[in-house]
């Protein structure tokens, strides 16, 4: 098999005396979706930010197998290179779509931004890809010139996904992509994400506190508590046969419908 796409080794991040995440190590293989679950404050988002190069860890390394430059330690790259990676080979889906979108410009401009950032200068072509992507995320193309402020929460989230995937990234970081949405909208977005991950052979790191989301989307699961990984394994295995007491508690606290 080929090399892992992303490999974290003993990633530790402290804020003052407080340990946000400690000694997290894992490998993410191409085409794999890794879920990170745990309660609020367990260090999931901090870990994600460290992986995506948005926060520098205090210890440990994060290596990424790039498409063109070989394997790089993302925290040793120059800022220019890291930002280039982030807008070509990576995507980042925020929990709050307003953080990931430009709310002042139309949906088309939001989707086209990455293309223009990597040098696209043909208005017609940019617009065409924006239309295609809008269709892929199931938004009517006549909303192309509307601003995201006029979109519903679910549509904004789908727009954010389109905006990230337009440059055909290899790795997507997702921070609670369905948090704060109602259940039926969540289901549609999960469906959409599952389809996109399949058809584009995406790898992803998905942070969530919702075990249902994790079950549906992820292949492998890491359970975090107090900044440490307490259990990891195949998603079905972890959820059906939790070993660690904390995981058992998490699984047991899913409300039966």
């Amino acid at each position, binding site marked *: 098999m080929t090399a892992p796409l992303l490999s974290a080794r003993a990633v530790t991040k402290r804020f003052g005396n407080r340990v946000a995440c400690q000694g997290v190590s894992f490998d993410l293989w191409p085409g794999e979706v890794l879920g990170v679950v745990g309660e609020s404050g367990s260090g999931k988002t901090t870990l994600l930010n460290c992986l995506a190069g948005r926060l520098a860890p205090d210890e440990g390394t994060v290596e990424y197998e790039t498409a063109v430059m070989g394997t790089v330690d993302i925290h040793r790259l120059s*800022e*220019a290179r890291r*930002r280039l990676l982030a807008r070509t080979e990576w995507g980042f889906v925020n929990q709050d779509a307003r953080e990931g979108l*430009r709310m002042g*410009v*139309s949906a*088309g*401009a939001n989707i*086209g*931004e*990455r293309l*223009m*950032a*990597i040098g696209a*200068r*043909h*208005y*017609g072509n*940019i*617009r065409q890809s924006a239309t295609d992507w809008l269709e892929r995320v199931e938004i009517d193309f006549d909303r*192309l*010139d509307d601003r995201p402020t006029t979109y519903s929460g679910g549509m904004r989230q789908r727009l954010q996904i389109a905006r990230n995937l337009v440059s055909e990234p290899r790795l997507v970081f997702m921070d609670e992509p369905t948090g704060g949405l109602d259940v039926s909208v969540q289901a549609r977005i999960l469906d959409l994400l599952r389809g996109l991950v399949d058809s584009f052979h995406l790898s992803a790191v998905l942070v969530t506190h919702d075990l249902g989301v994790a079950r549906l989307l992820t292949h492998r699961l890491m359970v975090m508590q107090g900044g440490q990984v307490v259990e990891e394994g195949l998603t079905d295995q972890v959820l059906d046969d939790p070993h660690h007491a904390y995981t058992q508690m998490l699984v047991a606290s899913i409300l039966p419908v």
Partner: protein
Amino acid sequence: MPDTNAPQAHDAAYNYAYLDEQTKRMIRRAILKAVAIPGYQVPFGGREMPLPYGWGTGGIQVTAAIIGRDDTLKVIDQGADDTTNAVSIRRFFARVADVATTTKTEEATIIQTRHRVPETPLKEGQILVFQVPIPEPLRMLEPRETETRTLHALTEYGVMQVSLYESIARHGRISKGYNYPVLVNGRYMMSPSPIPKFDNPKLDRNPALQLYGAGREKRIYAVPPYTPVKSLDFDDHPFEIERWTECCAYCGSTESFLDEMIVDDQGKRLFVCSDTDFCESRRK
């Protein structure tokens, strides 16, 4: 009314050209750096000037730092030599710098301008000083200064293209008519100050030195002579300048930038050259 063009002995109550020598030296250092890195905004210690921000405090400091007794100064405001702002800045330098002033573009060695580039082509040795309100071209798109500096440092100018895209999506064309963003020497994104986009092509490979001073924001930047200046556009929506169906009502020019005037209560309209010197020279 005194003849504003007559040279006067400089007012001994002030240092030559108003600013003290240390300040002028500091500004000259900033200018040298700006010329060395075309389009890059160099911070400088802007001083209080005897006119309000927005009236040309940046331009006037740049002019004060470079002016000498053998210079001939022309000041224009929206192309006109006879508006309040232009007249008072011209008088100011006649008084504090003992310098000859003119309204003729060819005779001037320094031209301080607000919102226009003269129609008469500039020559080598001339210096065009722009008054700049907002030096940062990305400011309206990205409010954080730390972020805009990073974007300049990393040449990440996609966001400016996004604003042009948005303009076409909304209006069917690039609707920006002034302060049209340019890329200087293939490297730095620059705000050409609020000149009409009609003047953008004149910035490209101009034989004169262009200096830009922003007083409130305390930035100086420059375009050295013969530097390529490219206006941003899309392949299928190329950069275009304004066109008029009329000609100038006074001189009949069809090539110059025209101002529209309403001349009576019936809404009768008249188009005249915005560059008064250009218009007058054609009428002689």
